[in-house]
């Protein structure tokens, strides 16, 4: 049996790869929105909304950075939230009687709907995959590592002598510095 593509033999699974793809997409879209907001507002008949688009761009960039980090879960959930806001904004544009580009807005909404579904799917998968401390919590209270009760093991290695280079810098009461040295006028070298 060829098991070279088993579930366990790669640490990156489909949902992780999808999260990365969404992360790069977020970064790209975010940069466009921040640098050239008119490229989006014009075809959607939403001129005047540039500051809002730029703010969305900043959000996308933050999501992108998060989605490319070691744990993308939160960032993909934020994307889901962002998608909802974007859909609401487009819906408003669609209802606007004076918008001359309603057709484009419809297309954008359909595309965004598809991305939202993808985000939602990815976020749910990641949620499970990255769940911190998930699964059963076993009882390790019998794993002492010692052959006898702990109290009888305390100091069992007291035959060990700390090497000179690893002794405590300041003397402990047990190894006190001894009596004070009385100053003398005699030269130490005699």
């Amino acid at each position, binding site marked *: 049996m060829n*098991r*070279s593509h*088993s*579930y*366990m*033999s*790669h*640490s*990156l699974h489909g949902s*992780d790869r999808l999260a990365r793809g969404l992360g790069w997409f977020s970064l790209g879209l975010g940069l466009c929105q921040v640098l050239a907001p008119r490229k989006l507002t014009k075809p959607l008949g939403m001129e005047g909304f540039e500051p809002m688009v730029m703010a969305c761009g900043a959000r996308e960039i933050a999501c992108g*950075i998060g989605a*490319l*980090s*070691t744990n993308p879960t939160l960032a993909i959930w934020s994307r889901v939230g962002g998608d909802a806001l974007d859909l609401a904004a487009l819906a408003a544009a669609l209802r606007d009687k004076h918008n001359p580009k309603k057709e484009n807005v419809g297309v954008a909404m359909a595309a965004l709907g598809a991305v939202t579904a993808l985000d939602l799917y990815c976020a749910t998968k990641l949620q499970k*995959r*990255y*769940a*911190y*401390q*998930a*699964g*059963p*919590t*076993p*009882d*390790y*209270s*019998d*794993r*002492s*590592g*010692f*052959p006898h009760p*702990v*109290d009888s*093991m*305390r*100091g*069992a*290695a*007291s035959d*060990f002598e*700390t*090497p000179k280079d*690893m*002794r*405590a*810098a*300041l003397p*402990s*009461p*047990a190894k006190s510095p001894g009596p004070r040295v009385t100053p003398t006028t005699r030269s130490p070298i005699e």
Partner: protein
Amino acid sequence: MKALCWHGKNDIRYETVPDPEIEDPRDAIINVSSCAICGSDLHLFHHFMPSMKSGDIVGHEFMGEVMEVGSDVKKLKVGDRVVVPFTITCGECDQCRRGNFSLCERSNRNKAMADKVFGHAGAGLFGYSHLTGGYAGGQAEYVRVPFADETHIQVPDTLTDEQVLFLGDIFPTGWQAAVQCDIEPTDTVVIWGAGPVGQFCVRSAVLLGAQQVVVIDNVPERLSMAQAGGAIPINFDEESVLGRLQELTHGKGPEKCIDAVGLESHVPRSPDSVYDRVKQSLWMENDRAHVLREMIYVCRPGGVLSIPGVYSGMVDKIPMGQLMNKALSVRSGQTHVRRWSDDLVRRIDDGQIDPSFVITHSVSLEDGPEMYNVFRNKQDGCVKVVLKP
């Protein structure tokens, strides 16, 4: 052969790679019987260690049988059963002769690059980036071991793989961390982190006779494992670390503090930890230092900070004023494995400790990549993963 290879952040793969060959007369080839995933492998997994290359074989905790030896290898022969220390040691340079095996001056073959980064480089390490020599790691079927006469620990056949495997890293690492504390029978030793190294710090501190051993973490099963080994557990999600330590030390603070966490410390509710996370993700600092700050703050004046936890580069906001005014000593370093290993083999053989207590998962090498996720997310009560090639 098959091996686990690094391909970027979160990306470890089970792959076919060329078999290792003897490259130097002092090399040996080991047929790996058991290997393990280490907490510090997670720093590679998260790509916090610079100078990794796609395709690098990871892993630095492994053991097995000698399959082939170079012409200059004198102390090993084919068929010998050995554990391999993660620090490669020549045994002849000035540092090796002092017992500072993790500072071997010869075993890092990328010394020029490492000297530029660190000022002066340390020893070569298996499977731990090109800064430490770019040596192929031990999560593989076979491994080339340089300076094989020195870089090995002979183990008796009466002990199982599970009992001796950790002599290559986490047991001596926990032991050295405790030894560096120069433990007195009146000492309170506090250990941050109840991961595998933290667990061995607890046992070592108990064996070395500390009056009180305290461990700080927030993963319940790890705390209970530490408690089984003789530690007083503090769950930082549930109680105040400072308050509890004051209570346990009659307001004087612990004499000895051990950081068994390292560069990825994170306490979600602590503001300095959030600050580190932000700075780290913006590449404005390499390492997160919450544990270091807390240790410096709680330690009794004149005490010792022992740092086996791995750091990679710059950290921010270290309270140097507290450190200096409290006359704290800092001891750190990668583990001088060989310096302790023979003594520790004897202690295992004498029945003072059985290191296999820490193993919670044992799977085939092929299933290793996904275990990185399980171990990282602390799922399924995962504390230590052993892999069988």
